[in-house]
Each structure stands twice: as C-alpha cells, then as structure tokens.
C-alpha cells in the first residue's frame, strides 16, 4: 500500500521535491508483476544519496531483471521525519510510495561510518525491528554492502547478511536464491542458511565472537559445519564487459554531484598506506577506452546533462589517459558538454589537459600532498615530492588559475611538529610560486586553501594497528598549524576532531560497539556527518551507559599478533603484507606502485594467471 503524503505535509517541509520521485529515467514497473521487491536504501539525504555512483549502477542493473523491482529510499530530512512520525507515515520507497516494510529485501549501502545511526533510524521509521533476531518471517530481509562492509562487525546484530566486495554479480546470485526460497516458502533463517555459501556473502548470525580477558577479540568462528571460516570479497574481473547503465536518473533539484559520472577503473596502483580504498578495491582493473567513450555518449544522450565527470581513485593513472581523455573531450565538446577531471595526481598534472577540460571556467584546482614533509610522505607512501607540487602549481598559476586547494592529514603515524610546520611551509612556497609568476599571465587574485583532516586508522591498511591521536592531541596540532600559517592569502580549514574520533571507533569496532550505535540513536543521534546534527555529548553518554570505552577502539596501539574483529573477512590483501608495509612505514621506506613492480600483496590470486598488471 502506498503511503499518503498530503500536500499539507509537503508544503511544510524543506525541498519537497526530495520526496516525490518521478524523475527522468526513474524506473516504473507494476509491483504485483515482479517476484522480488528490493528497497535500495542510502542512509543519508536525497542530495547525497542520489550522487552515489554505486547506487546508480545497482539500481538500474537490478531493474534489468524482469522479476525484480528495485526502488530508492533515502533518509528523510529531520523536518520530514517529524511529519512522518506525527502522521504515522512509515518509511516509503520513492517510486511507488509503498511502505518498505512490505518489501522482500531492504539493502543499505555503507559509505561512511557516521551514517550508521541513520540505518537504525530508517529501520525504525520503516517499522522493521532494529535487531535481526527480532525480525519474523514476514519482515523484509535486511542486507548491506559497500566499502564499510569490510568491517561489518559494528552492524553484525542489525544486518541479516552483508555483501563483501563488488555487487554486480553476487547480488544477482542472491536474488536468484531468494526467489527460489520465496517460492518454496522457506523461513528467513533457511534463506540465510542457503546463501551463506555464496562467495562474498557474510551472515553474521552464523558466527560467534569470543573475547580475551584484555578485551580484544578472538577470531570469529562459524557456529556450525558448512559455514565458511572466512569470507572472500567479490570482484568483477572484466570491467569492460560488466553492466554499466545507459541511463541514470536525472533529479529535479540540485544534488551534490549533478552530472554524469563515468567510471574508468577500480582499484589503485599506488598503495598509500592510510588509504583503505587503495587496498580493499585491489586489484586495479580498467574499463577499455572504447567502452568508456561508448557509455559516456549514451549517458549524455539519455540524461541531457551538460557535464560529465570521470570516476576512479586516481584518474591520471588510467593507462592511455591522454588518448582516452582527448577523445572524450573532443566528443563532449561537440555536444557542449563539460568534462570534469577529479582525482588528478600532483605528479601528473597536465596543463594542456586542464585547459582543454575546464576551458575558460577556471574553477579551483585541488592537490593532495597529504603530509607536510618528504619524510612523512614516505612514511605514508604517498610517492609525490615537493617538486611535483611546485611544478604543478607553477604551471597552474602561469595558466591563469588563482585558486588552489591543498589537502593534508593531521595525526599520521610518526608525525612530529616539524611535519606539521611543513604543511605551513608548503603553503608558503605555493604563495611564493604565485608571486614569481609574471603578472601578465597569472590570475589577479590568489587563494590558497589548506585543508587538514584528521587521520582515521582503517581496517585492511598498513596502519590498522595504529592508535589515533587523542582529541586533545589533534586539537593541539590543529592549533599549532594555525599558528604557523602567517600568509594572509592562505585559508586554513580543519575538521571536527570529535567526528574523526567516532569514525575511528566504528571503523575498527567490534560487535560490542553495535549496542552503542543503538543507544546513541535512542538519545537522538542521527545525521552525524552533518555538523548541525552531531551530538557528541550524547555519544559519550551512550558509550558510558553501554560500558564501552571508545578509546579502546580509537586510540589504542594494537600488538602485531592481535586478532582483529574483521580478520574473518578476506579482501585479498594478506595481513602479512600489511604487516610488512607497516614495518616499512616506520623505516620510512616507500613501496613502488603496482605497475613498477609487484609487491606481492596477495590480491593477484583473484585473477586468472595470478597477474594484476601485464
């Protein structure tokens, strides 16, 4: 049954077009003519969720199946949530406005830890019990996937099953199994029993976790024979021939990434030691230039968008990048479509390309040196030098750009005051380069932004053993940096250290932290990644009431032989390799990128022949 959202409600909330659906290219089906109704939930608001590439791919891919109707669900903004609760309107899907409680499967994508309370809130708003164990056979199955699923443990009591790795193939296998189970009218438990042997599927209720006296975990154990001891992530081997949508939804109102997004490769050859994506998405796999061009053309035609952006972890690492981007540029120019090139590396900045891509619209350029000194950049294996940055900005300034953003992290392992001062010095050098650029060629105004986030140690990185700096220490470092930045044309931005602290807790959290999530939600925590809704005091109360010490997760240095809550998840990169990378970090030794030399991280076993890069 469709819920009734009256005009009086819609007229009383901010941006009502978030809740009306009917956008161009949204999929219309007859719900009673399909076997499976799937609610794809993004635990944040419409503008953020609609910008997410993974959702765009899976939504259209699932709807290719005649037996399935996949609909979209976003977290209603707080004003709408209030109206829904006041009027007893349950959470509904945008396409049919049907309550998702009646759906077969509810799937969440886990993009960042600070969205977890929204998952709880959405389940509650839907009228679905929060804990898996409380759900009955007539409740939907609740699943989750996405990058944060590599450590699924904080949500282990809430989610019925997780998809580990890339979803294109495995989701279909699960839906096939579900359809059979539904026909045979088996229990939800039996369905979970049946899918547990599909590679990439993790059913947390089929594992037990015991703890050591010091509070650390023992490895999660299957509760019975036949349940795999370790869950290996799924990957798509051939990215050129995997499904990519020819149409994507065109929202009415402005969303965060309001353009066509064209994926060009997955994985990254670089191995920056702080970067979780760099490890969990290995091995690097490219979409052929031919396919990129073909898909880009179709998407531009089917949407009418006037901008297209390339998506990958490091755009310029695409082989034959120049050839591909030039062809794409030519094609897009004839259609008056703008090409955006995010994630360019400092060492590969091509003025020629940027000129062509951005035409005369010289929006800001962003570079990410990540650390202030060469020593620390070697520790994190960033692999770019000061010269790379200086060359790039000098090219940019003489090309007429006047706005440069520099991204750094504070709180990296081995960091000293000298490294932090290095950030300020680097900023000064950039200003110096501008001043040395002839007045005739440079832009009239200079604007250098130094943006410093706080380092959050993540699972499956060489820094997974590392403590996060305490909030006090991070604040001290932020202040120290602020004191060192003396140039007036440098703007300094920093992140809320309290948010980073909680991220660190849940990134490496175990099952016990799940109770804290629920407790914090009970205290009103939601939309935690939105500054205006972040309630730190309530979070701290929640930890206390659950008798859970957040510092145990965030700021504790782990011993090399500690079992981690995520050790039964296998992303392909071996723990041994991460240990050796951890050691090399402290020795300030860099590791070459995957194209220069294979370092034997272990992920090549995913590929036929065991070679990632020919």
């Amino acid at each position: 049954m469709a819920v009734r959202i009256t005009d009086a409600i819609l007229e009383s909330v901010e941006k009502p077009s978030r809740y009306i659906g009917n956008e161009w290219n949204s999929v219309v089906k007859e719900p009673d003519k399909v076997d499976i109704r799937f609610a794809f939930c993004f635990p944040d608001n419409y503008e953020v969720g609609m910008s997410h590439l993974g959702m765009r791919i899976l939504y259209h891919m699932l709807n290719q199946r005649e037996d399935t109707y996949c609909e979209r669900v976003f977290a209603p903004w707080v004003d709408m949530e209030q109206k829904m609760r006041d009027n007893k309107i349950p959470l509904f899907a945008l396409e049919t406005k049907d309550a998702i409680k009646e759906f077969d499967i509810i799937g969440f994508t886990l993009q960042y830890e600070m969205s977890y309370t929204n998952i709880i809130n959405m389940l509650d708003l839907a009228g679905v019990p929060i804990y898996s164990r409380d759900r009955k056979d007539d409740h939907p199955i609740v699943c989750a996937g996405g990058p944060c699923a590599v450590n699924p443990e904080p949500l282990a009591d809430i989610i019925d099953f997780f998809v580990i790795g890339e979803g294109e193939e495995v989701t279909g296998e699960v839906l096939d199994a579900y359809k059979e189970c539904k026909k045979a009218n088996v229990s939800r438990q039996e369905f979970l029993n049946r899918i547990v042997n599909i590679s990439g599927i993790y059913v947390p209720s089929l594992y037990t976790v015991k703890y050591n006296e010091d509070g650390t975990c023992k490895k999660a154990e299957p509760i019975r024979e036949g349940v795999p001891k370790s869950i290996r992530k799924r990957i798509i081997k051939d990215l050129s021939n995997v499904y990519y949508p020819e149409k994507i939804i065109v929202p009415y109102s402005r969303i965060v990434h309001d353009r066509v997004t064209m994926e060009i490769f997955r994985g990254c050859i670089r191995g920056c030691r702080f970067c979780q994506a760099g490890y969990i998405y290995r091995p690097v796999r490219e979409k052929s230039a031919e396919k990129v061009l073909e898909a880009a053309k179709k998407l531009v035609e089917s949407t009418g968008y006037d901008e297209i952006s390339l998506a990958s972890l490091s755009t310029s690492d695409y082989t034959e990048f120049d050839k591909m981007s030039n062809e794409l540029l030519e094609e897009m120019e004839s259609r008056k479509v703008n090409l955006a090139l995010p994630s360019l590396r400092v060492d590969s900045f091509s003025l020629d390309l940027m000129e062509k891509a951005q035409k005369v619209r010289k929006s800001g350029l962003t570079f990410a040196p990540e650390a202030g000194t060469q020593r620390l950049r070697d520790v994190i294996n960033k692999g770019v030098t000061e010269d790379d940055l200086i060359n790039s900005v000098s090219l940019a300034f003489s090309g007429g750009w006047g706005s440069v953003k520099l991204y750094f992290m504070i709180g990296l392992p081995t960091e000293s005051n000298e490294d932090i001062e290095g950030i300020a010095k680097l900023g000064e050098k950039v200003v110096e380069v501008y001043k040395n650029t002839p007045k005739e060629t440079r832009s009239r105004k200079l604007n250098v932004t130094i943006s410093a986030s706080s380092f959050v140690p993540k699972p499956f990185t060489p820094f997974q053993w590392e403590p996060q700096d305490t909030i006090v220490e991070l604040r001290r470092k932020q202040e120290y940096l602020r004191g060192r930045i003396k140039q007036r044309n440098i703007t300094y931005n920093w992140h809320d250290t309290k948010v980073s602290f909680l991220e660190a807790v849940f990134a490496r959290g175990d099952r016990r932290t799940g109770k804290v999530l629920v407790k914090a939600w009970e205290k009103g925590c939601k939309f935690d990644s939105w500054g205006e809704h972040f309630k730190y005091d309530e979070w701290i109360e929640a930890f206390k009431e659950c008798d859970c010490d957040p510092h145990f997760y965030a700021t504790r240095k782990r011993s090399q032989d500690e079992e981690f809550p995520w050790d039964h998840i296998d992303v392909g990169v071996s723990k041994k390799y991460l240990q050796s990378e951890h050691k090399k970090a402290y020795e300030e030794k860099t590791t070459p990128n995957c194209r220069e030399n294979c370092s034997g991280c272990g992920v090549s076993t995913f590929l036929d022949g065991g070679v990632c890069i020919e």
Partner: protein
Amino acid sequence: MSKIRIKFTRGEEVKYVSHLDILKVFERAARRAKLPLAYSKGFNPHPQIIFGLPLSVGVTSEAEFADFEIDGAVSPEEFNDSLNKELPKGIICLDAANLYTKKNIMVSISAASYKVLFLCSENLKSVQDAVGALKKKKMVIVKKFTKKGERDFDIRPLIYKLDVFQFSYEADGCTNPNLVKYVENNIDDFIHNTDFHREDLYCLDMLVGAGNVSNLKPSLLMTALSETEGLYLRQVKIHRTGLFLGDTLRLLDPMSESVLENI
C-alpha cells in the same frame, strides 16, 4: 537565429519543482531531444531560454510560457513534438509558434488568472458578500514581507476580476478537469480532523496584475479576503489558468498572432 514560444502545463507531478529547476528540466529535455538551441557566448555557454512569470512551489498551471532561441532549422510543430517526448510527467507542451517580436515573455506579462480552492464554513451568500465587499473597497491594504522588512501594500488596483462559486464535484459542473480530479483525490486530507465538510469548498476565480513591475500573488489576496472581511477560510489549492500581455483594457494571449508578430 530565430525564436520559438511554447505554452506548457505544470501538473501535480511537478508542482514541488522550483522555478529554477524547471528551467533545468527544459534545458535537459531540449538536449535529449537534440533541438538546435542557441547558446550564449562567453565563459560558460548556456541555452537561451526565458520563462514567463515564476510559479510558486505547490501551484499547478495550465498556461505557462517560455521563449527559446533557436540556432538551426526546426518548425514549431517539430519542436513541440520532440520536446514532449523528453519532458517528465506533468509537463506537457501544448503549443509552439515562431516568435518575431523582440520583447520576451518575461518582460511582457501583465496579468495572470487563477482558480483558488478554499474551505469556508459560511454559506455561499456570505462568502459572495465578503468577496463583493472586498471588491467595493477603494483600497485593500495588506502587509507584505520583503527583504527590506514589512511594508503596507495596496492590492486593490491589482484586482481586475474576482468571482466566487461553490465548488462542483462533477466534471460537467466545472470547466477544469484538473481541479475536479485533484479535489476528488485530496479533499479528505483537508477536511480530516476539522469542522469542514465537502460542501464547504469554494472556488475563487481571479484575474490579477502580474509581472515584473507589480505582481499580486493569489495567496496574498486570500490573506486579504480573510483578514479584511473576517472570513475564516482554509486554502486548499492554487491553480494558474492563464497569463496575459497587454493592459487591462485589452488583455492578450501570449500565443495570439498579434503578439507573436508585433515587431
């Protein structure tokens, strides 16, 4: 370089889409339809499309207008048909014509007509009397909230026509099937938990001044009716039925030949 003027609807499906977002809807639809739009020169070329009077969020319309600058050969009929294939539900292009005048639609609008549905517990006679009393006034002062703060505003000169009827629930009894359908689907939401009944629904037909210089929003007129005549009412729906050029003595349809060809 030539120009085409279109007339289009904004139905229930898109009534919460803002004026600026509707502009984007047309830009994208025209790109999908591969229509030869003219682009502005300069740093950031964009198609040259000009819309008539903005429509407030939540209001539907059966008479919206837009002028497109064209760079290529396309007949108004082709333009109309290809656009309709690419427009989302709720927006229908009703008519298209070549435009020869330099005056764009936005600067030419002088009046707009609306049907406003509202609930009121008084009987028809009392409601008609209240409307009649408002019309007899020389001045009708309302408070208008602007960026500069609150100020008094005489809306009487902008009220050209004002008539009230009891709403008829049968399609035959009303010239506007959009409204009949809307009422059938939604009236219960409005009378739920109130003292109103279905028979308390009235329709106010109005023709008011509109455009860049002086514009009267129908909701403001409703406030005036309620406040100056002491009529307790609940607004249900606003629907725009027409936009006009010219002056009060001689209002013109934006698609009429004399308007399109007035050089």
